[in-house]
């Protein structure tokens, strides 16, 4: 059996920990749904207009919801010292970090993806857009989680870290939102939506390869000092 080098162990650990604070996990989801109500209230309930901006709105909300929950990735481990213990242990940390981020995605990105058809309904998303929207969100929120983890690692030791985290990570999110929204848009306009989705997939592949390495070196830097 090929060793997963701690990936599963930390995935299970984090899922178990998150399970103990289920209420916390629900809040990004509730934010996601409530914000969808704000849009027609604030802009227009006109279905014709809404359906043009629906994919973009859903993506922006998904982005904000991910950023909301990003803080909790390393915060509790940092405060009770278990992060430091992880870092001074002799094992390679790339896979454990990936396990933690996957747990985060399973509890933020994936629920967002599954709930997005409901938002599509509220925002008059055309029928052609539902499946591409979900596909794009499933892949894109993976990227969002990885980049959010990088931001969380940089700001874990700071007092008011969450706002700084948002500032750092937002510019890096721009390409993801461009291609994510385009996936749904392309399908609505009748074009092949596999193109933008493939680019999202490529971004996810690069992120999976590079982010954990960066996250580990940043954690070593900000935690053990």
């Amino acid at each position, binding site marked *: 059996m090929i060793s997963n080098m701690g990936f599963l162990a930390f995935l299970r650990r984090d899922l178990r920990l998150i399970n103990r604070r289920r209420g916390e996990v629900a809040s990004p989801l509730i934010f996601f749904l409530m914000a969808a109500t704000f849009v027609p209230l604030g802009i227009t309930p006109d279905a014709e207009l809404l359906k043009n901006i629906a994919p973009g709105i859903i993506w922006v909300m998904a982005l904000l919801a991910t950023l909301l929950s990003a803080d909790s990735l390393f915060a509790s481990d940092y405060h009770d010292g278990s992060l430091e213990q992880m870092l001074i242990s002799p094992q390679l940390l790339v896979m454990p970090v990936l396990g933690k981020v996957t747990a985060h995605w399973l509890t933020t990105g994936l629920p967002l993806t599954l709930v997005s058809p409901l938002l599509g309904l509220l925002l008059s998303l055309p029928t052609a857009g539902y499946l591409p929207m979900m596909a794009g969100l499933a892949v894109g929120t993976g990227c969002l989680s990885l980049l959010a983890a990088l931001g969380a690692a940089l700001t874990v030791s700071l007092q008011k870290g969450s706002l*700084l985290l948002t500032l750092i990570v937002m*510019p*890096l999110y*721009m390409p993801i939102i*461009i291609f994510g929204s385009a996936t749904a848009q392309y399908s609505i306009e009748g074009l092949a939506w596999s193109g933008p989705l493939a680019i999202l997939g490529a971004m996810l592949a690069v992120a999976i390869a590079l982010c954990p390495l960066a996250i580990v070196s940043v954690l070593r830097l900000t935690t053990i000092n």
Partner: protein
Amino acid sequence: MNWNWNWFYRMGSPRWFYESTSRWLPWLGALTVLLLASGLVWGLAFAPQDAKQGNSFRIIYLHVPASFLALAGYFLMAAAGAIGLIWKMKLSYMVMKCAAPLGAVLTFLALFTGAVWGKPTWGSYWVWDARVTSMLILLFLYMGVLALQYAFDSKDVANKASAILALVGTVNIPIIYKSVDWWFTLHQPATISFTEAPSMHPDMFQPLLVMILGFYCFYAVALILSVRVEILSRERKTSWVRGLVKQATNKNLGAE
């Protein structure tokens, strides 16, 4: 043949940097003033106006150099951070720290001149053109590095964290630029890209070259001045800085 690395390590000495720049910085400053003044006068008064845009086209002599330097400055900042991370050179970190606000102001300048250019040309101050949007994201990247630099108590952690963030941003810049380019063609098929004018008439291109050179020299002067102040501040306990301060205060007292 042995390659002697002494020159490289000597370059990392703040004192060497301070003392050698003291010698030639005034000359570089004079060159900057010369280039900027002549380029500006040439561009504003002597270059022909554009057939379509008229005289507002002259803002190109400010906007394009500022944009070049804004982008080049980010790469310089990231490179300085990388050198600091790899060779643990204090001076390199100081350069990175000083390049951040300088680059951010230049990015703002590029955006401002672009907006002022846009009003008479396209009718509004802000257009979501590919270049402008990319420049705005660059500004946000700069602000992130700046914010991170000042967030930590420990200078060592602040330097390394900012360096890592700058490098992450560098990897992302081509992706961001290409994405925004693609996004823009998706939404607005036919536009004039007003920062790209490769087929410019030489009469218009030459003053632009002078201004670009002038801006590069200005950037070097401004950066070196900031780094010198940073060196004085960080090395204040050393004897050579103390000696310098004594000289400076004696000169002031003598002048009185």
